[in-house]
């Protein structure tokens, strides 16, 4: 019997999908594999490729084998194809086919819709590794460097997960699309990544933490909704990816949190009470809270754009087809078909942002975005608690959804972070206070000096409260290769 829990190493590609007896897909993946390795090797600076990194690797998809920690060189990381175990009698959870057995093969009528969703998801995974490729050179500690590389290898594995689906279920088209996932490149002129946010560079570590907090959280929400898919292989793939995604949320939340903690600590050490004494605060080599708010404004609003239009027929079709569900679909108490329901979305009436009822089916994106905002506000609350605990009078907050938008009803319209419609002039005047300026970027960049000694941290960030895998504070998370 095929062992669907433990990872099999009998082919070059670790997997729990019985690849060794699926010659067609195995051959296709083996053909794709060298291109992937080349992509990886060209991407990450060579001395990091040669370093031993304390990474977790899954040896099985059940909780027991899920997180095995050991030193590994990144190019030797066991990227593989891992699906959560198949549920017994799983049913399509929503839409017009609700209650029918989940599809184990691609339903012909939804083939293109499915393929498109998988490609978009797949395209974001290598993109973020590309965006973050040089961060190792300025890591504030070996601990942070290890977390970066863990995120990177797992994004690489998520690419594998999507490529497997393309090869297994979409034949020749799928193989072509899988090749294109390696051909497109973040920020490239001729072949950019598909979504805007994934073509912006990640220039510094605060950006990286904000990215993992906000943008990877969009990824998490998308995976959550795909994990509800009636197409069972996609659902199982995404369910397993979600366990890995949690680590990325962790890196973001604690990364920003530790930056804030350090700033508060330094302010207290030097008796600075006013968080807006920016020059003075910066003179001690930490990032002032107003600048952190600006970074937050930027990354949050960029990530809102990733959810697409508030009212969308594509999203309605995907839900109705049972291809994509809602966040926690199984815990929502309604008919899961949205035949008569309405949902409140943002709209514009003249210059005013207004709330409006629309058929819930068309508001699937908005609903996921609302769930996202709620999820994202939790961490902001915890950051504020830390600021309050340090006795500093400052509160971070998520800007209004109308601020700084490129997609949706507010696209290109001047709103301030409180959601007030303002003139173009007022916006231009306010912008340097709301979004990071080049000078802010230069200042943050000036702090980005690597710290490679075990147990030591750059001056702008506090050490973590708990080590990875319960390791002590001075644990050597990366054994750097010094060539």
């Amino acid at each position, binding site marked *: 019997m095929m062992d669907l829990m433990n990872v099999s190493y009998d082919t070059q590609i670790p997997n729990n999908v019985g690849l060794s007896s699926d010659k067609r897909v195995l051959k296709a993946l083996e053909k794709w594999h060298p291109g992937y390795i080349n992509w990886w090797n060209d991407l990450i600076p060579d001395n990091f490729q040669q370093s031993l990194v304390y990474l977790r690797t899954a040896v099985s998809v059940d909780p027991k084998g899920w997180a095995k920690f050991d030193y590994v060189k990144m190019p030797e990381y066991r990227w593989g194809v891992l699906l959560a175990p198949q549920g017994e009698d799983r049913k399509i959870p929503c839409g017009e086919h609700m209650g029918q057995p989940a599809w184990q093969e691609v339903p012909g009528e939804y083939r293109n819709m499915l393929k498109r969703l998988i490609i978009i998801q797949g395209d974001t995974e290598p993109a973020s590794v590309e965006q973050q490729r040089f961060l190792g050179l300025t890591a504030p500690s070996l601990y942070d460097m290890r977390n970066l590389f863990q995120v990177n290898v797992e994004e690489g594995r998520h690419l594998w997960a999507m490529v497997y689906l393309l090869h297994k279920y979409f034949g020749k088209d799928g193989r072509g699309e899988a090749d294109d996932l390696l051909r497109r490149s973040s920020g490239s002129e001729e072949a950019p990544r598909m979504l805007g946010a994934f073509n912006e560079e990640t220039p510094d570590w605060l950006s990286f933490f904000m990215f993992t907090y906000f943008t990877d959280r969009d990824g998490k929400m998308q995976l959550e909704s795909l994990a509800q898919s009636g197409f069972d292989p996609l659902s199982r793939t995404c369910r397993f990816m979600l366990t890995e995604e949690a680590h990325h949320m962790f890196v973001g939340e604690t990364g920003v949190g530790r930056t804030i903690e350090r700033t508060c600590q330094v302010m207290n050490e030097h008796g600075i009470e006013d968080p807006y004494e920016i020059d003075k605060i910066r003179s001690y080599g930490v990032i002032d809270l107003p600048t952190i708010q600006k970074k937050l404004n930027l990354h949050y609003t960029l990530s809102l754009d990733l959810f697409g239009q508030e009212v969308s027929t594509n999203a309605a079709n995907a839900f109705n087809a049972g291809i994509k569900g809602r966040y926690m679909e199984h815990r929502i108490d309604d008919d899961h078909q949205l035949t008569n329901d309405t949902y409140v979305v943002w709209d514009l009436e003249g210059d005013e942002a207004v709330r409006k009822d629309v058929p819930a089916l068309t508001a699937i994106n908005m609903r996921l975005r609302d769930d996202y905002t709620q999820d994202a506000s939790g961490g902001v609350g915890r950051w504020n608690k830390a600021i309050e605990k340090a006795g500093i009078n400052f509160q971070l907050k998520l800007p209004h959804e109308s601020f700084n938008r490129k997609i949706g009803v507010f696209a290109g319209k001047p709103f301030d972070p409180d959601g007030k419609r303002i003139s173009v002039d007022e916006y231009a005047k306010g912008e340097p206070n709301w979004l990071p300026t080049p000078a802010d970027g230069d200042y943050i960049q000036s702090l980005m000096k690597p710290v490679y000694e075990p147990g030591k941290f750059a001056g702008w960030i506090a050490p973590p409260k708990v080590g990875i895998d*319960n390791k002590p504070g001075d644990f050597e998370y990366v054994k750097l290769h010094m060539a």
Partner: protein
Amino acid sequence: MPEEKLPDTKALKQHLIDPEICIRCHTCEMTCPIEAITHNEDNVVVDADKCNFCMACIPVCPTGSIDEWRVVEKPYSLDEQYAWTELPEQQEIGATNGDEIEALDEAMAALLADAHKGAGGKSKAPASAAKPSVNLYNLAKPATAKVQGSYKLTADGSGADVRHIILDFGGQPFPALEGQSIGILPPGTDKDGKPHLPRLYSVSSPRDGERPNYNNVSLTVKREEHGVCSNYVCDLERGDEVRVTGPFGSTFLMPDDASAKLLMICTGTGSAPFRAFTMRRQRVAAGMSGDMVLFFGARTPDSLPYFGPLSKIPEHLLRKHLVFSRIPGTEKEYVQDRMMREQEAIAEMIIDPNVHIYICGLRGMEEGVEQAFSSIAESAGQSWSSMRDAMRDEGRYHVETY
């Protein structure tokens, strides 16, 4: 460990989540197979009425906040946990206070304390040791393991019958670290007609299983002439089912640190934890030099458990001193005699802050070993008792004798 009895207790180990560390990703909640984890707007919490310690949530947590435990008489309610902004301290409960709880059963804890008393003070786990799970199964709710194999380790004419027994736990989680013990419940009743209480045995397999990534453990058991449990265990055959409690013990653990050096001294079945230590290092620290030294005493080679497999472990990984006291025509040699012959090497080791010392076996060996250490320390102008106490307080000196 030898055969001793242990009753049960009312104290309860409660699984909690640290709200200061948790990032509310809810991965644990999605993973929990019985929906024992839930959340409100503030905290993610574990329902003590539902949690069955299956540990499925532990590895999926990205933060480590999930791996928190408190021994309580009355579990914290969901509402209490929702209101927390930080975890409460461990309350002092009966005899089991402090941070390292060896067992929840009081008699069980007393038994381990007795086994560890040769260390001369309160035992501490190595700083880098993995967190052990303790008392997942008790008398009221034992695990059932299936015997996968039983192999005699000693020769027929050797006068000793020591067996290597492999127990498979199937779908029941049984996370046992190297150095921990488990309780075996022999069937039947004692002379007063009461059911037999469990007996304790050290596991001799590493944490990822006797076979890597199998949910099994091995034991090293010597048949005692009138031992109820040892005869039961040594007579077990493949396929038999055994009731098991534990795991127990939270200090006699190995450091999770490839740079730590181990000095291990044992007799007879006291070798069980050291087999586990060695296998763990062979599996994870491939490429590192071993930095392990073993002094192992037995009467004769054919009564020394694992004599064959031991001799196959390369010396650079494990430096072996196999010492025999009953070889005809040869002078009797005990572990302490060999230690004295190796005193220069040992003197170097005991002043090295990376060295962890472990002593395991019959209580009778303690005195001789202690004397050898004293004399080695003295020749280097040091006081053994203060060195030993310092090492013990740093979690680097461990004794388990019976």
